[in-house]
C-alpha cells in the first residue's frame, strides 16, 4: 500500500515536469510573496500550503530563499499508471530527488519550527556582534503566545515558544548601532503591532504667561494644574491649601510632586479640582501637578516616577453585582 502511494507521488511529480502550462489555483493576495514563476531549481516540493492561519507577515528570508514555489500535483491518471512506464520517464525519475520544501516537513508544527530554526541560524550568524545588556536593549513588546498561535494556526507549546523568545531577546541585545538589517526585518514578524513608545503624546508647551498645564485623575476626581514659576504659593479652586484640604495628608498629597523634587518654593500652583471626595481630589492634583511640572522640567520624569506621581491609579469603586449585596458580599446563607 505504502509503496503504491509513493510510486503515485513520484509519478505525479513526473507529470508536473511534463506539463508546464496548466491552469493553476490562484492563491489569494496574502500569499503573494510566494512567487508563481516556474522554478529553475532541481528540487520539487510536495508540501501542502502551510499558510493557513492569518499569517500575513513576510516569511523569514533565510527560509523562503530555500523554498520552492508551490504547485499542486496534477490529478493522477489511473489509466496511465496501469501501463508499463516508458523508458524516457524512467530516465527523468532517476535524475530527480524529492526533497520537502521545509526542513521541518515531517514536524507537526512546521511553521513554528521553521521560525525557530531560522532564528537560531540568524543568531549563529550574528553571534559575534557586540551586545548590550538586556536592560539597555530597546524595549520590545513581543507577540504573546496566543497571538502567535493565531498567526500560525499551530498549537505551539508554551515552553517552545519561550525558547524562541529567548533567541529573540538575545537578537534584540545586539548593539543597536551594529544590528544588521536582516535581523531587524526578521524580528518584525514577532513584534506586536504597537510597540511601547509608539504613541508619543505631543509635548506640553508653556503658554504666553509662562504657565504649564497638566491634567490628573483619580477615582472620580479630575484636576487641572497650572504651574508658573514663583515662590510656592498654592491656590486650589481659588482657596488656600489649608482651607481647601482639611487634612495635612491631603495637602501633602496635592503638592507631593513638587515636594518630592524640592521644587515647592520654585513654582506657584493654581489648581481646579472637580468631582469625588477629598482623597481623590488630592491625589488627582498629584498627577496633574506632576504633568505640569514635566512641561517645565522634562528631566524630572524618573524622579517623579520614583515618587509615584506618573502612573495613574486605575482603581475605582467596584460595581455591584446582581445576586450580591455589594460588589463581593453575598447574602447571608439561610437554611430554608
Amino acid at each position, binding site marked *: 500500500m505504502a509503496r503504491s502511494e509513493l510510486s503515485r507521488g513520484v509519478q505525479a511529480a513526473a507529470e508536473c515536469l511534463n506539463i508546464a502550462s496548466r491552469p493553476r489555483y490562484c492563491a489569494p493576495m496574502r500569499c503573494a510573496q510566494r512567487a508563481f514563476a516556474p522554478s529553475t531549481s532541481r528540487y520539487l516540493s510536495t508540501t501542502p500550503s502551510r499558510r493557513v492561519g492569518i499569517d500575513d507577515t513576510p516569511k523569514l528570508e533565510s527560509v523562503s530563499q530555500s523554498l520552492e514555489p508551490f504547485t499542486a500535483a496534477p490529478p493522477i491518471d489511473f489509466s496511465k499508471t496501469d501501463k508499463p512506464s516508458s523508458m524516457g520517464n524512467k530516465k527523468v525519475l532517476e535524475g530527480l530527488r524529492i526533497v520537502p520544501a521545509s526542513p521541518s516537513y515531517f514536524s507537526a508544527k512546521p511553521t513554528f519550527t521553521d521560525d525557530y530554526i531560522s532564528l537560531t541560524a540568524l543568531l549563529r550568524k550574528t553571534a559575534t556582534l557586540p551586545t548590550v545588556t538586556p536592560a539597555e536593549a530597546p524595549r520590545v513588546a513581543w507577540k504573546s503566545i496566543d497571538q502567535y498561535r493565531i498567526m500560525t494556526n499551530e498549537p505551539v507549546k508554551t515552553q517552545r515558544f519561550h525558547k524562541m523568545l529567548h533567541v529573540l531577546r538575545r537578537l534584540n541585545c545586539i548593539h543597536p548601532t551594529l544590528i544588521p538589517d536582516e535581523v531587524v526585518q526578521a524580528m518584525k514578524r514577532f513584534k506586536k503591532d504597537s510597540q511601547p513608545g509608539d504613541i508619543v503624546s505631543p509635548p506640553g508647551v508653556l503658554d504666553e504667561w509662562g504657565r504649564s498645564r497638566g491634567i490628573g485623575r483619580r477615582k472620580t476626581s479630575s484636576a487641572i494644574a497650572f504651574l508658573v514659576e514663583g515662590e510656592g504659593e498654592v491656590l486650589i479652586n481659588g482657596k*488656600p491649601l489649608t482651607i481647601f484640604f482639611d487634612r*495635612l495628608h491631603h495637602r*501633602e498629597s496635592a503638592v507631593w510632586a513638587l*515636594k518630592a523634587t524640592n521644587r515647592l518654593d520654585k513654582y506657584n500652583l493654581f489648581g481646579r479640582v472637580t468631582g469625588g471626595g477629598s482623597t481623590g481630589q488630592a491625589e488627582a492634583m498629584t498627577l496633574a501637578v506632576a504633568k505640569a511640572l514635566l512641561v517645565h522640567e522634562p528631566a524630572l520624569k524618573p524622579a517623579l516616577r520614583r515618587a509615584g506621581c506618573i502612573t495613574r491609579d486605575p482603581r475605582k469603586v467596584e460595581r455591584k453585582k446582581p445576586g450580591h449585596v455589594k460588589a463581593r458580599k453575598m447574602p447571608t446563607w439561610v437554611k430554608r
Partner: protein
Amino acid sequence: MMNSSTCLRSFSKLSLDRTAHASLTSRTLFAPQTACFSTSTGYRAQVTSKAKKPVAPRRGEKTLNVKKGKKAPNYDMGKRPNPGERKAQRKRIVLSNNNALAVASLQDLSPKNVLDPSIEGKVMGFPEEIVDALRAEEAFKPSQGWGLFRRPAALVRKETAQLATLIKAVEDAKAEKQPRTIRRLVTGDLMSGKSTLLLQGLAMAHLRGWFVINLPNAQEIAFARTDYAPLAGSDPLQYTQDTYTADLLRQILKGNRAFLEETRMVTKPDLPFPLPANSTLKVLVEQGMVNSEFSWAVFTTLWQELSQPGRPPIMFALDAIAHVMRNSDYLSAEVKPIHGFDLTLIRQFVDHLSGQKTLANGGIILGGTSQSNKPATPALDHFIKVAEALQSDPDNVPKWNPYLGVDQRVVDALQGLEDPKQKDFDVLRLGGVSKPEAKAMMEYYAHSGMLRHTVDDRLVAEKWSLAGMGNVGELERASVRLRL
C-alpha cells in the same frame, strides 16, 4: 433657660452681702449654687425612694449571674471624672512647658521697644507682669499653643507692627490734645492669629500704660448663661448682666491694678452705696466686684472717671464679635429675643465701635472675629467683605445680596466700614506671615527644642507652602504639633 430660676435666686439674695463669694475666678462657671429658700420637697422624695428600691450592685461589682450563657458586662473600672472636671480640663490655660528649652536669645517686650518698628519680624516674649494681667483678662485662649513653650512669646508680625503704629498715633494725638479713637475689626482666615493679635494689642497697651478692658468672648455675654436684669430708666430698654459685669470688674482690677490703686476719684457720682470721699478707683471697683447688683453703676462711674482729662487712653477689646451682631439668647419680659446691642456692656462697646461715642482721652476699640465659632451674621460678613475690598480692590466692592435678611441695627453700627473716608474705622485683615517671619518663628520653635530640624530656607519654604501661604496656626501645627 437660667433666667427665671437665677433671677429668683438673685432676688432672694439681694439683701446678702456677696463678699462671701469673692473668691470666684470665672464669670460663668461659678454662679452661686445654693438657694436661700426652696419650695421643693426634695427631702421627702429622697426618703421614700431609698426605702423602696433595692440597692443595685455598684458598677464593676461581681454579682451572681443566673442567666445562662450571658456574661456580665465588662465595665472598665477607671475612675470617672467629677462633674465639671472635664470642662475645667478643657478650659485650662497652660502657659509654660518645663520640658521645652528656654530660648536664650528671646527678647522681652518693654515699654520702650514695643512701638519700635525694628522689632517687626522677631519673636518677642511677654514680660511676667503682663502675662499675669493678660491671664486675668482671659486673653490667652486654650486652643492657642502657649503650653508648648517655656514661656509665652509671640511673633511681631506685619499686622502687629501696624497695630503698634495705631497705638503710637493715639498717643501722639493725645499729646497734641486731640484725642483720637481708632476702631478696628480684626479679620482673617481660620487660625490666622486673630485672637493672638488681639492679645498682642492688649499687651502693648498694658506696656504703654493704657487702661485695658477685655471682653474675651462675646459668646459668653450673649448665650444666656449669666443673669440679666432690665436697666431702670433706659430707653429703649437695656439689660445689665450683673454677675458678668462684677467679674469683669475683678478682671479689670487685676489687669490695671497699679493705675486703679494710685488714681483717686475726681467726680462725685450718685452711687447707691456709700463711698468715702476722694477714695481711689480701686475701692470703687471693689465695691462693684463684691456687690454685683451695683456692678453696672460702678462700671459707668469708672468709665466717667476714665473720661476725665489726664487719664490714660483706653484699649477696649471684644473677641468673637459675631455673637453679639444678632439677637442674643436672652428673652425679654414679652418673651421676645433681646438684641445683642441691648445688653449694656455690648452697647458700650458698639457705641464706641460705630463712632457714635468717642473716647475722651483717645484709645483703640478692637473687635476680633472668629472663623471657627461664628453664627450667621450676613450684615457683619458683608461689611467686612466691603472693607477688605476697599483696601485691596476698590473697583470691585461687593454689593449687598437683597435676598439675605438684614439686621438694621448691625448695618447702622457698621456703616462706617463702607466709607473709605473714615480712616479711623477699618478692618485689619490678617493674611499669612511672610517667609522671613515664618523663619523667625520656626527658629524659635527649634531653639525651644520643639522642632527637631535644621531650619533652613528649604524647610521654611516647604512648611510655608503647606501651611497655606504662611497661615500661622497651620505653620505651628505642621511644624510643632504634628511630627511627621
